[in-house]
């Protein structure tokens, strides 16, 4: 019962990903894909590798085995004399523009106004003329409900406002997909709602999204598919209603009973 806005094209495709931190295997042969227009929610106990998986998608982490492809293009590697070698930083940077990322701790640039935070990447990386970039930025700020904060500095904003600016900043590069790593977990409870509302709107517009979150109610509402991880592996996946009402894997059951009560 896939909604019609989801195409069959696999926008992001990870196959057989293995990732080690020193002597611990953090990702253990993960296959993972996201179709165009799909909203995938990643859940799993702490330390199961959700963050690491997300970071592999835009090559903030290198992998020891497996492939990451975005729009069928290999991320972080290129062929040289018939073998895969690490790509140049410049090329990786170029590839990262396809995928926007929103961090748990917002990571806005503190020395720039909200408007500068949003326009810096289009201005410098896509050579958009300044006036156009600022108009687009104001449009995005309206979308996230902060048009009057354009000239404020991040430190003058609440956590929820900062996170909404971070979303606008990621959108300004017009990425094909957005990755969210627990976007509300560093927020005071009063501010969680406003950020989730913006994400819900975004999902409604057909944006491709991968979301790591502990907000199960939200997950159930917006997810097209829920992927459950444990110990660096995908242990279960499916439609949210199915996962939440009838989890198959004992670890999924344990996780949901811990989170939902």
């Amino acid at each position, binding site marked *: 019962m896939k909604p019609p806005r989801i195409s069959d094209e696999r926008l992001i495709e990870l196959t057989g990903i293995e990732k080690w931190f020193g002597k611990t295997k953090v990702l253990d042969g993960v296959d993972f894909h996201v179709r165009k227009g799909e909203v995938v929610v990643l859940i799993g106990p702490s330390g199961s590798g959700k963050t690491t998986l997300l970071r592999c998608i*835009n090559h*903030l982490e290198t992998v020891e085995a497996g492939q990451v492809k975005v729009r069928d293009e290999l991320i972080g590697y290129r062929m040289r004399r018939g073998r895969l070698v690490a790509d140049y*930083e*410049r090329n990786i*940077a*170029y*590839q*990262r*523009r396809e*995928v*926007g*990322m929103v*961090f748990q*701790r917002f*990571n*806005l*640039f*503190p*020395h720039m*106004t909200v408007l500068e935070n949003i326009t*810096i*990447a289009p201005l*410098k*990386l896509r050579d958009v003329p300044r006036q156009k970039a600022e108009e687009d930025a104001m449009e995005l700020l309206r979308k996230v409900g902060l048009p*009057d*904060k*354009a*000239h*404020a*500095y*991040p*430190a*003058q*904003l*609440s956590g929820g406002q900062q996170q909404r600016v*971070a979303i606008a*900043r*990621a959108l300004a*590069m017009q990425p094909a997909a957005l990755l969210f790593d627990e976007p509300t977990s560093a927020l005071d409870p009063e501010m969680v709602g406003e950020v989730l509302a913006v994400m819900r709107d975004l999902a409604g517009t057909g944006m491709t999204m991968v979301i790591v979150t502990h907000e199960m109610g939200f997950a159930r509402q917006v997810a097209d598919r829920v992927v459950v991880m444990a110990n660096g592996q995908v242990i279960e996946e499916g439609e949210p209603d199915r996962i939440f009402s009838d989890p198959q894997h004992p670890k999924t059951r344990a996780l949901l009973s811990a989170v939902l009560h």
Partner: protein
Amino acid sequence: MHFDWGYFWSQLLTPSGAFLHGLFLTVLMAVAAQLLGSIFGLGVALCKMAPNRVLRAVAGGYIWIIRGTPLLVQIVFIYTGLAAANILRFNDIALPGGVIFPGSVQAGILALALNEAAYMAEIYRSGILSVDRGQFEAAKALGMPPAMMFRYIIMPQALRIILLPIGNQFNIMLKNTTLVSVIGVSEMLLVTETINSATFRTFELYAMLALYFLLLTSLWHLFMSWAEQRLARSSDRLAAPRKTLAGGKEAAA
């Protein structure tokens, strides 16, 4: 031997042309060497943090050697040693307007700058490392290549942190210029010594020289305090949330 106050005051308040020229050379060398050292030091710092291990080793070795040997030895080595080995020779350069830029001054500036670069590199490095990792990741995630990330995101934040240590470095630099007297640059110390060798008013002359240096360093200190205060005020803006914000007001802030 009594202290000749008359001589002291006249030298202090109406210094000879030669002394003023020495003062000029001192300040010129300090400023030039600080600028060059700051630029080169940034390069060394970036190499020290580069992914390439050869670059890292070269930068590390450079810092190790410079910080491990006396500046005085470096100055003599660069002026005399390099020329003796036929590696580098400092010839006078005639600037337009008939001004001569002597080789020994060139060598002095170069030696001071190369020395400074090693110290500046460590300052930059600690400044850059003290920028939150999240800033690096956010810039990368937006698709910025390394150079752009440093230029627009990391350095502006690092510079706020390192302004104070850089100010201290220039204070040290002002004083270090005296060492260049050993290769015959007539900066303030050497001028004072030659005046002394004709007048033998040793104590008065050195007291005057010390006062001039105190003046230079204290002026610099005042300037830095002022710059720091300004920076603190602009950092307030970055740190303290305001209650009410209106677009117009903020733009003016």
